């Protein structure tokens, strides 16, 4: 294996040491940076929009007519309502979750034999936002939104119940549903880092 030699010396020669060349180099770096545009986002007054794949607070996609055909097959076993969560209470998310106490999911059998999800609580205080639950969801219901301001005044506030989960996902889909699902929403920025990629489909 060929060893690549770098053109950097370990020591300065005597002239460079006398004229403080290393100091001058450092000073020129800081001076150049002094006139650079600051990269600060002044947070409370300016907020960054995270990428669409950002792993923020969770959400439940709702039954709104955009779901794939495969979901129609299980429709008759569930007592779904329009505009309510698609969850089938399969406990896959809870199984995938590294944190045993995060989810609290309950379902009942309705008199007509169908299944109804009555409770889906997520204690975000336990959550490490790994996204394994989202991957595990077989019906494409559980998702993660781009909401990241999750501080609250009580522990109770940090538990997401079904209504808030649905609300988050409806809001997320309305705002960013049409965006391509990419890490770098701006192609130019991505290409600067990773080069050009041909997208298929």
């Amino acid at each position, binding site marked *: 294996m060929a060893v690549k030699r770098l053109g950097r010396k370990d020591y300065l020669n005597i002239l460079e040491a006398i004229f403080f060349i290393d100091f001058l180099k450092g*000073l020129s*770096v*800081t*001076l150049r*940076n*002094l006139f650079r545009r*600051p*990269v*600060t986002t*002044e947070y409370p007054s300016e907020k960054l929009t995270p990428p669409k794949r950002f792993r923020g607070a969770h959400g439940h996609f709702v039954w709104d007519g955009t779901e794939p055909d495969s979901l129609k097959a299980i429709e008759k076993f569930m007592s779904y309502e329009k505009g309510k969560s698609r969850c089938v209470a399969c406990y896959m998310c809870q199984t995938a979750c590294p944190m045993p106490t995060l989810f609290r999911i309950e379902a009942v059998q309705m008199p007509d034999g169908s299944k109804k999800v009555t409770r889906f609580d997520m204690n975000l205080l336990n959550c490490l936002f790994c996204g394994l639950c989202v991957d595990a969801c077989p019906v494409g219901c559980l998702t993660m939104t781009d909401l990241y301001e999750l501080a609250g005044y009580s522990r109770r506030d940090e538990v997401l119940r079904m209504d808030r989960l649905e609300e988050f996902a409806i809001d997320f889909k309305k705002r960013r549903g049409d965006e391509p699902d990419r890490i770098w929403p701006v192609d130019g920025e991505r290409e600067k880092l990773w080069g050009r990629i041909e997208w298929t489909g």
Partner: protein
Amino acid sequence: MSEFTLSLIITLVKIAVVLGVAMGLGAYLTWFERKLAGHIQARLGPTVVGPFGLLQPLADGIKLLTKEPIIPRGADVPVYYLAIVLALAPAILLFSVIPFGPGFTLLGREIKPIIADVNIALLVVFAMGSLAVYGTIFSGWASNSKYAFIGSLRKAAVIIAYEVVLGFAVLGVVLLAGTLSTTGIVQAQIDKGVWFVFYQPVAFILFLFCMLAESGRVPFDIQEAEAELVTGYNVEYGGMKFGIFPLAEWYLNVMALSAIAVVLFFGGWSGPPILGPLSPYFWFLAKMFGLVFFVIWLHWTLPRFQAKDVTEVAWKIMLPLALVNIIFTAVVVYMRGG
């Protein structure tokens, strides 16, 4: 009104002006330094309090003044308080021998814009520079804290490194000017028509080195190394008692020593008269703040030396250089019949 009372009043007015300007500028240098540091690191610095964060020093002052005073258990209380005075007083006293401009006549009286025009002004500078170290050492000793104590011991190690070099570095200028008086040195440069930095570039570098070491600036800020000593000798001080130390050491001392450097090497107030009667003051302050800017710029550029490196550089490189410089200068001055 007797002559004595009049001169006393004039001196008091001068003291009030210099003290007010120095302390105000010292406070605003904190703002300047934070802005500069921020922009060097592609940040913004203070922006919230006032336009461009200009009221930030006032807000900091209010915050520091209203903080709860806490004195560590086992502290040597009289020395603990004495250290604050000993840090601030020499830094302010340095301003007393700085000539800000040429003498002028006001209401038939000759007034010099210098508080004490003494013929041993440079000795006063050395004396105050040495005294300032007591503030650092006392504060570390009195706080009964190991970090503070390590910080003050490091300062003691630094002072034995730079004090000697400082004296020898300045001696070259003294030989050229033939006087220890600051006004005399500036006058000598104006008479010769050349700044001494062109005759004594080595001495200027050495002086800069000593200035950085004395004011605890990077790369010689080993006594308050934030990363390893959590700001070192002043770590056990709180509120305004803490605020005094950076104000005195980082801002007043840097300003005063920059002013001394301007007097010694950059021709003091000399410069083209672009602002009429105010131009000497303008040139003096412009040169001084150019140097202050350079020191702060250096602060946010360089890493920190180790304590042993400072001593090593001072004794093995700087001191021989200073001696050679002096001997060379003395020989040249003697040959030319100076």
